[in-house]
């Protein structure tokens, strides 16, 4: 599983005047915050770049940042059709963990987790990475066995994981209903203490600001409408702001990957599905960790602002509408009250949906394509936020070197042809 060494980028901002710190905050307070600079330039596209990243979500922005900071490619652009982070990055439930079953998964998610651990300092942007732990609950004999399998694999992969008894769970999460007579009693759980949450919007902003600082152009409100090719080579892209020449294009557009692939005459093994989430009204802290339950089917955490953040599984049909059907949140809340009766007296504040790109084996695609210079990073489905730094890091490497490193290699499109899948469905029940 040994992968490429962790190269965190450059650490901090190049432009000293823009650096954030307690001191800069105090200085600015004196002048009523009139002196802050733009976090990133509102760039207009140049006619040509060395590489273009399509998609200004976390993964795309991270790719740009690592292209610039690790591979020294600074004549690059990120093209975003709407506003930065407005895709799934801006609407996910922010769960971060690396306790996956298969070696290939452990390798990339752990790579990401290690990057998360220094990311705020790297980017000079507090992305509020909160290592409050992620606790997955088992509710049956069968799930206990699955859990044992998982924990053994995780631990041998050198990743932290511990098993908790129902008693320990009750102490750790007093609001959970651990009554053994309920329909799906809490029979145990496994905790990754290094897992947790991060402030999702800040991740996009932090990467954008750091990439911009290194010279990358961040171009918003610019939709890619066609890919230009000459023979089997990519030569540029067409956008709503004109044509841009480039010989390397990285597509990181999550739910829209099939649409982009279509532009290249390709087809991907993806379905774009609504994934819904909701928050309650904010309350004082009652939950200090992240809880995931497959059998009762929901997961929950409490944001720093106080809302309970809840989610469950994807809707059953394909959609690009960023909204789902009511039964999903309905069942999610039934499950939530079943497991956390205290929620009964709370109120749902806001509900939303995102469009996730799900793969047949519930694992992502990080791959070259039949078109030279065209790369795809997609298929993260319901659980790619946690991978953001790792994904950007290895994708930048793939783009810069035109070959996958050992972490990315198993994720090539080829696997669907050969059958070497990385079936993480077990992890994807309510995987986030």
């Amino acid at each position, binding site marked *: 599983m040994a992968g490429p060494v962790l190269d965190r980028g450059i650490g901090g901002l190049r432009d000293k005047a823009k650096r954030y710190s307690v001191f800069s905050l105090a200085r600015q307070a004196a002048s009523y915050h009139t002196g802050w600079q733009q976090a990133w330039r509102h760039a207009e596209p140049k006619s040509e770049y060395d590489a273009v990243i399509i998609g200004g979500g976390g993964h795309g922005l991270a790719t740009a940042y690592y292209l610039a900071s690790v591979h020294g490619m600074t004549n690059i652009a990120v093209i975003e059709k709407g506003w930065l982070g407005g895709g799934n990055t801006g609407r996910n439930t922010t769960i971060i963990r690396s306790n996956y079953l298969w070696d290939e998964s452990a390798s990339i998610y752990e790579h990401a987790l290690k990057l998360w651990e220094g990311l705020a300092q790297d980017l000079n942007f507090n992305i509020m990475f909160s290592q409050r732990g992620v606790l997955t609950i088992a509710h049956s004999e069968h799930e206990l066995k699955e859990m044992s399998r998982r924990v053994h694999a995780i631990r041998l992969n050198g990743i932290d994981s511990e098993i908790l008894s129902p008693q320990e769970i009750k102490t750790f999460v007093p609001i959970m209903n651990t009554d053994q007579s309920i329909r799906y009693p809490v029979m145990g759980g496994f905790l990754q203490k290094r897992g947790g949450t991060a402030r999702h919007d800040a991740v996009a902003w932090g990467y954008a600001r750091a990439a911009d600082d290194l010279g990358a152009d961040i171009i918003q409100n610019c939709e890619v409408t066609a890919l230009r090719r000459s023979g089997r080579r990519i030569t540029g892209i067409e956008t709503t702001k004109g044509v841009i020449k480039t010989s390397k294009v990285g597509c990181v557009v999550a739910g829209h990957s099939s649409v982009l692939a279509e532009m290249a005459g390709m087809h991907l093994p993806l379905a774009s599905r609504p994934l819904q989430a909701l928050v309650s009204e904010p309350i004082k802290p009652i939950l200090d960790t992240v809880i995931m339950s497959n059998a009762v089917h929901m997961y929950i955490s409490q944001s720093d602002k106080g809302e309970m953040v809840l989610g469950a599984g994807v809707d059953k049909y394909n959609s690009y509408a960023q909204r789902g*059907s009511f039964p999903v949140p309905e069942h999610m809340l039934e499950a939530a009250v079943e497991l956390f009766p205290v929620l009964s007296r709370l109120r749902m504040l806001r509900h939303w949906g995102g469009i996730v790109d799900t793969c047949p084996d519930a694992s992502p695609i990080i791959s070259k394509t039949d078109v030279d210079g065209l790369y795809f990073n997609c298929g993260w489905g319901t659980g790619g936020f946690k991978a953001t730094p790792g994904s950007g890091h290895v994708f930048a490497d793939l783009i810069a070197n035109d070959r996958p490193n050992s972490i990315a290699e198993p994720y090539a499109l080829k696997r669907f042809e050969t059958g070497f899948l990385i079936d993480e469905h077990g992890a994807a029940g309510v995987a986030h």
Partner: protein
Amino acid sequence: MLQLNCPFCGLRDEAEFSCGGEAHIARPLAGNQLNDKDFADYLFLRDNPKGVFLERWRHAAGCRRWFNVARHTVSHEIIETYAMGSLPKSKAARQAYQESWRRKTAAEAASKPAKKGKEGR
């Protein structure tokens, strides 16, 4: 929540149905020659259009019958519901059917018996 028209039972809530994804995927016969890449077209590659989508649904909590639906994946408009084994009639859905890349795949071609096999198909 969508409302679908089961061709047999009538209008019902989406909750009564299960969705089977892309419609009109013909299964290649194992007896036919097909390389792994083309076989993967059948097994894994899925149409995932932003627009008119031809898909299969099953009235799971009702008559358990499968049928086809042409649905817009952005507006969620149900353009047409039509029987299993038949082709759509509306213009938009017909176009989606005909223009689908799948019509040209080797996998689809391999769904018909190559020569008369001994055991039927």
